[in-house]
């Protein structure tokens, strides 16, 4: 028992080291970073963070990213819930093929699809809008959401549906007031994965935006090349990208801890 927690603690320390190192750098000036190597910074400065929070070129990046990530999560959940229900409960023509086809959309190398994507979204006048990035991210998030929700829904016995229909529930009322509360934790977990994969993706987000919806990750790469590598500022911006994700995982931790099996085991 003791040995077990020792392994866990060692692992946690190891994965926190790179993140700690970034935090450490973000609290120091560039001159200090280049001059010496200190594990615990002595001359702490918040200048890097102040720069980010006062310069709209920086903080608008965070706002843009959050807008399209939230949009993406909402689109995915709203459309995937009925689809996952259908895959779990009904058998219909081509159901298994469509189910696997959905996941194949995660398997295409994004790099070459960027130009066609750009052309497609230009045709619809969607370039540099948040909804464009949200829709593009559906390509890999929607299949995953359907797969996760399908796993959760298959864990709910079908007798519940049947009993509700016998009790006189119409389908929409049953779905919204009986069924969705039952798979609450599934929705939480699916939302977490949507948020995660949309937040960390860069290629699509950078290609489909120029200024008005530019994500923070793209802002970082450009500023680095123009200002000649300001390590402290870069580290501060990087550290701030972790914060929204950390909040989301805090909210869904209980759903993860409750456990899920996914799939018909």
């Amino acid at each position: 028992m003791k040995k077990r927690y020792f392994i866990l603690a060692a692992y946690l320390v190891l994965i926190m080291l790179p993140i700690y190192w970034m935090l450490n750098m973000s609290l120091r000036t560039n001159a200090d970073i280049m001059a010496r190597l200190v594990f615990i910074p002595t001359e702490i400065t918040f200048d890097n963070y102040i720069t980010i929070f006062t310069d709209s070129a920086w903080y608008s990046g965070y706002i843009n990213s959050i807008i399209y990530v939230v949009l993406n999560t909402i689109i995915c959940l709203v459309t995937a819930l009925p689809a996952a229900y259908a895959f779990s409960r009904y058998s219909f023509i081509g159901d298994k093929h469509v189910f696997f086809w959905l996941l194949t959309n995660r398997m295409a190398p994004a790099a070459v699809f960027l130009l066609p994507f750009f052309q497609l979204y230009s045709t619809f006048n969607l370039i540099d809008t948040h909804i464009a990035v949200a829709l593009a991210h559906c390509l890999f998030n929607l299949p995953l959401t359907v797969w996760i929700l399908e796993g959760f829904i298959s864990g709910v016995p079908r007798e519940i549906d049947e009993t509700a229909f016998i009790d006189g529930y119409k389908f929409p009322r049953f779905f919204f007031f009986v069924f969705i509360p039952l798979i609450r934790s599934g929705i939480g977990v699916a939302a977490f994965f949507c948020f995660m994969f949309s937040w960390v993706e860069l290629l699509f987000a950078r290609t489909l935006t120029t200024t008005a919806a530019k994500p923070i990750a793209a802002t970082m790469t450009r500023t680095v090349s123009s200002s000649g590598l300001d390590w402290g500022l870069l580290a501060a911006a990087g550290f701030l990208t972790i914060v929204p994700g950390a909040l989301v995982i805090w909210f869904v931790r209980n759903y993860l801890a409750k456990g899920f099996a996914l799939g018909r085991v």
Partner: protein
Amino acid sequence: MKKWQDNKGWLFILPVFIIVAFSAIIPLMTVVNYSIQDIFGPGQRIFVGTEWFKETLTDPRLHEALWRQLLFSGLVLLIEMPLGIAIALTMPTKKGLGSSVCLVLIALPLLIPWNVIGTIWIIFTRPDIGLMGAFINNMGITFDHTASGLHAWITLMLMEVWHWTPLVILLAYAGLRSIPEAYYQAARIDGASAWAIFKYIQLPKMRGVLTIALLLRFMDSFLIYAEPFVLTGGGPGNATTFLSIYLVKIAVGQFDLGPAGAFSLIYFLIVLLFCYLFYQVLLNVGKGESS
């Protein structure tokens, strides 16, 4: 579980189908279009048939990139899957602050944008300002991932394991938590060893989540781009030029859309083939013992 036979299921999946088809089928057809034409500029293109496919399939640099990619993904799966399951087994079983904090800390690397991951590892491993780089060099070993291919591989593998093992841990942990306590009680009464519990209860019950974990890990590691691009840029030399990096060199660097189109279709088919095989195997493995 027997399902209702009903084609109105299609109505339910229609929104998903339309959104995914919009972003998937039209761009895919455009890429197919590229792959059979030689494009000089807007409006100037000639039909070349399967020439790009032949050229791509015989390109020795592509073969090298493919072997590198297979080695990389193979190592990733071999390290991350067992490690992830092992760490998940060490996590606290009781709900409380301990398990909450563990979950949040473990998930952190997953929630960092991919190019920032590269940045983190640059500042972590640089010999002058990086904690790890400086530490290793101070021990008297020259470690520089920009100079040695082997060091670049080690750094990349460390980064990859650091970055993605948490996904396996989270999924495996959730799978473990879904096992009812009664199973463990029964195992205790039978006097089962820890290994027997793992083999006959925990592993079969985790099959669903591990299938997803394996598929996601395979796909994402096989398509890896942003992190090695930021960290090593495919170098030193060609030591870490994986398929995606090579593909982007052709498509964006040289703007050879025809070969790039053919390349990405072949690439896509390779990923598809592997995933299909994994999926079929995992769907059928252990079916007899768990049900």
